[in-house]
């Protein structure tokens, strides 16, 4: 038997003629493609988030970031431990990376400025980083005695050195002369996401260049090698490390597939991504069920058409071909709409994402469309098959639902309400958790605060410490009427500036985030806490020339001095083989240096005795503006070498830091509203369908004396029962998933979760109940029409 070509043309033409005009179909298409596109957008965002393209690395499979974590802190792994790990296998190497602002000068080009220097161990070949000029061979894991070499970035070479021939030329970094051996590729900006590095120096030379420096928490550590191999080595060596270093009582070594981002950043972003993925998955399930329900309704009508065609002489084969063509056309339409929706959704959700269309993205887009086409083709044919096999053609006005149909209808409605309840609950939890974060005290007040960074030409022959600048500079600036207060800080919040020292308690306990890392030590001038409006919790602030006094933050105090008085609180600072005793004179509240959801480290504040040039001037202005010219002229009056590099509003930095959370909240609110709206529309139309199919029964029962209330209870009660069963099941499933598999999400579902879930369920039940009541009432008005 053959299918006539004209019949095929006719089927396709008729399908387009009637379906393209259906507004309901378009609404259903848009509803189902939004979550599809959103899930893909989140996946794309995740891929871009972990992508190390900023470091010109093409292959991330061979590099694994390793960090050590305890219950509260994630920190890099000490060299001693890393050496133990690599001793286990010849194929594994470790990489350390740290970025610092340092003075850079190149005599031949009269270049003398502060630049960002990255200390990086090596492994360029394994990572696939090829220089645009020169060779990186001497940069691959050099030994301490080797020649001091450096590579410059392409950006630095073009902009600062005007693409001159610099290979083998000397470059001075922090007073040490190194030889330029390579220019890195143009795609390389940094080994850290968001940074723009000028010079890369082998990590081995770090101490030579910046002096004796201990291992700091802002260092990133990696293991080079196949993940599975590295992971098994790390797992096997853990008991040995426990014995050797006594560090693993509550600590754990972790491997993550992230390059150039700190574990904290990776974890907090992963939490948000997981939450988004969860919400979009719920939305997708919801919309898929709604779409299938819509299609089932459509297929009811189609069944009649097929029956009619059969009566007109259509063969089984022809009907089957028609079914396949129609489902293929609809699947095609879905894949096209999804393809259009994807960039729209991506730009809506991740407005800061670069949306450049590349051939790779086109291939991904086509692949994505094909997957959607095949998936929906299979779904639609399954639904069509089930429909034709088990469900009789549509029920008319004068009929009623069978028990199984009633069960199906109620079960479907219960599922939809259950998913709505779950989604609203999750979005509410997300909003609450993000709102709580936004309420976290940063430890300072950002309004009208400014951070002024200097492009300090810190000539090593003429250090600023010789001229009492830390005292003079704030004093001179504070004379300006529009400025309320001025202070200097070596590491103001929400900047990438860090400074560390080694501190111990008098009992010899190492003070820091972990036992292995040094302590965050911020040098400030006395009015720093007043300028930042940071509360002093105990004691007093730092005072001029009291160099043996220090102030500590609340985390440090609670960790090492809880229950003690200030008079007996001292810390020892280690410098080479000597140590000096400092008195803790005050305790200030914690300043959230990286935002409210980052780990809080112990911090020591010491008096600034010299200006190295990398500090920021913190200005509390009397107005919302800061007169850059005026500040600049005051600075020049103090020292003609002072040049302003940048001025940042602290308020803006806080806003930037909070943007991701605000985006998440906005997105979850939009999703919650979208789900609620579509849920109400779906419920309303679906309940109307149920009541319409029950119209005869409802009318008859009313003539038997059933009151409106009784009818409502009779119809609505089983639905509410199913709804409660489905919702409870979904809640328990979610709780299980959350507790066992998905603990790492930006939610806190366990605190009062059941109560909130119950409340959302009750509210949704009331809304659905009201819809039922209203529809029953409308039906009763037409009762006699249904019967006579």
């Amino acid at each position, binding site marked *: 038997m053959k299918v006539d070509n004209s019949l095929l043309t006719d089927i396709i033409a008729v399908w387009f003629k009637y379906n393209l005009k259906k507004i309901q179909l378009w609404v259903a298409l848009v509803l189902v493609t939004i979550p599809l596109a959103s899930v893909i957008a989140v996946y794309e965002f995740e891929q871009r988030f972990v992508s190390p393209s900023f470091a010109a690395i093409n292959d991330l499979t061979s590099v694994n970031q390793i960090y050590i974590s305890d219950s509260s802190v994630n920190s890099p792994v000490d060299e001693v431990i890393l050496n133990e790990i690599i001793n286990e296998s010849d194929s594994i190497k470790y990489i350390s990376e740290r970025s610092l602002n340092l003075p850079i000068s190149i005599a031949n080009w009269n270049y003398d400025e502060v630049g960002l220097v990255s200390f990086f161990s090596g492994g360029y070949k394994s990572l696939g980083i090829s220089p645009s000029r020169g060779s990186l061979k001497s940069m691959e894991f050099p030994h301490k005695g080797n020649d001091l070499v450096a590579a410059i970035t392409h950006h630095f070479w073009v902009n600062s050195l005007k693409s001159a021939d610099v290979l083998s030329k000397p470059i001075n970094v922090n007073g040490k002369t190194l030889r330029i051996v390579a220019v890195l590729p143009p795609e390389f900006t940094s080994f850290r996401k968001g940074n723009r590095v000028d010079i890369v120096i082998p990590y081995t030379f770090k101490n030579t260049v910046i002096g004796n420096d201990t291992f700091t928490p802002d260092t990133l550590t990696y293991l080079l090698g196949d993940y599975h191999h590295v992971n098994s080595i790390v797992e096997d060596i853990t008991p040995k490390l426990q014995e050797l270093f006594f560090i693993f009582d509550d600590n754990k070594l972790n491997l993550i597939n992230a390059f150039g981002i700190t574990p904290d950043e990776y974890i907090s972003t992963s939490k948000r991504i997981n939450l988004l993925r969860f919400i979009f998955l719920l939305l997708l399930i919801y919309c898929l069920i709604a779409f299938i329900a819509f299609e089932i309704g459509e297929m009811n009508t189609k069944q009649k058409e097929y029956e009619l065609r059969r009566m007109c002489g259509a063969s089984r084969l022809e009907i089957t071909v028609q079914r396949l063509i129609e489902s293929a056309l609809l699947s095609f339409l879905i894949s096209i709409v999804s393809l259009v929706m994807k960039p729209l959704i991506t730009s809506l959700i991740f407005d800061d994402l670069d949306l450049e269309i590349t051939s790779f993205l086109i291939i991904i887009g086509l692949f994505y469309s094909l997957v959607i086409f095949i998936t929906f083709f299979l779904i639609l044919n399954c639904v069509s098959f089930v429909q034709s096999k088990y469900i009789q053609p549509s029920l008319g006005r004068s009929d009623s639902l069978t028990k199984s149909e009633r069960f199906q209808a109620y079960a479907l409605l219960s599922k939809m309400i259950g998913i709505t309840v779950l989604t609203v609950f999750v979005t509410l939890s997300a909003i609450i958790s993000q709102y709580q974060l936004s309420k976290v005290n940063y430890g300072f007040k950002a309004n009208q605060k400014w951070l002024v960074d200097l492009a300090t030409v810190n000539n090593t022959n003429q250090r600023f410490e010789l001229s009492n600048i830390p005292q003079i500079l704030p004093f001179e600036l504070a004379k300006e009427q529009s400025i309320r207060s001025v202070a200097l800080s070596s590491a103001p919040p929400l900047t990438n500036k860090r400074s560390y020292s080694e501190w111990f308690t008098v009992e010899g306990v190492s003070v820091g985030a972990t036992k292995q890392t040094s302590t965050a030590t911020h040098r400030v001038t006395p009015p720093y806490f007043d300028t930042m409006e940071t509360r002093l919790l105990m004691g007093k602030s730092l005072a001029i020339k009291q160099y043996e006094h220090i102030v500590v933050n609340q985390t440090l105090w609670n960790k090492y001095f809880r229950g003690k008085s200030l008079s007996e609180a001292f810390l020892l600072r280690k410098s080479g083989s000597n140590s000096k005793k400092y008195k803790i004179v005050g305790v200030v509240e914690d300043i959230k240096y990286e935002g409210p959801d980052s780990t809080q480290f112990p911090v020591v504040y010491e008096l600034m005795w010299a200006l190295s040039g990398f500090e920021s001037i913190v200005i509390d202005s009397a107005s919302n503006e800061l007169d850059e010219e005026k500040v600049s002229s005051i600075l020049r009056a103090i020292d003609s070498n002072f040049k302003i590099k940048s001025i940042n509003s602290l308020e803006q930095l806080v806003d930037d830091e909070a943007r991701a959370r605000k985006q998440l909240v906005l997105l979850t609110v939009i999703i919650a509203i979208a789900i609620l709206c579509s849920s109400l529309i779906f419920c309303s139309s679906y309940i109307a369908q149920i009541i319409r199919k029950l119209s005869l029964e409802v009318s008859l029962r009313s003539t038997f*004396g059933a009151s*409106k209330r009784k009818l409502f209870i009779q119809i609505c009660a089983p639905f509410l029962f199913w709804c409660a069963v489905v919702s409870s099941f979904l809640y328990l499933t979610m709780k299980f998933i959350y507790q066992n598999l998905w603990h790492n999400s930006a939610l806190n579902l366990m605190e009062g979760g059941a109560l909130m879930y119950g409340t959302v369920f009750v509210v949704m039940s009331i809304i659905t109940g009201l819809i039922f009541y209203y529809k029953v009432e409308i039906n009763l008005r037409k009762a006699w029409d249904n019967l006579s």
Partner: protein
Amino acid sequence: MKNHLISLEGVSYSYSESSEKVLDNVDFTLYKNDYAAILGTSGSGKSTLLSLLGLINQPTAGTCSILGNDVRSLTDESISNLKTYEFGYIYQNFNLLNAFTVFDNVAMPLNYNKHVHRKDYAEKVDYALKTVGMEQFCNRYPTQLSGGQQQRVAIARALVNSPSILFADEPTGNLDSKNSNIIYDLFNELHAQNKTICLITHDKNHAKRANSIWQIVDGKVSFESRQ
């Protein structure tokens, strides 16, 4: 006045404010133990009249009273009770639920009868089905019955709560003459058992079986004859 069961005085009815009146200034009385037939052509408003008598709809003008009480003064609960205990409805298209068995269809009105326990359903249903001669079809589905049998089941359903008034809207409209006669014989038997019957029909021969005949033309009702 003593035997007045349901009275309509100056009753008008329209389905919406803007639409034409289906019933216009109607006066009608249904007496106790009466067998009244309302005769009219299609679209004359006879089914609408029955909906007012059966308290399904309320008149838009005029007064509808039951045992001398204005229907407007009755609560929803009182109307529901009247429908449960005093009224039985029979329709032209039977209105049986195809998804339910004969037993479940007939038992449905018992759901709203507070004086009958579930354990007594079988007895009540059996009695109602025996009255119409359908007791052997109790486990069948409506689609497995002929039109006449379906209507007898529908009558059994109307009788199961032992109502005092039966409203029948063209009960034999879908039946042949043989089955129609069976149904009207049944009505005669029920009337003989002191049931009040209000019959809507367009067939004069069927109307002749009633005690009183009313004529409805274009929404206006007139009394025709009493036997």
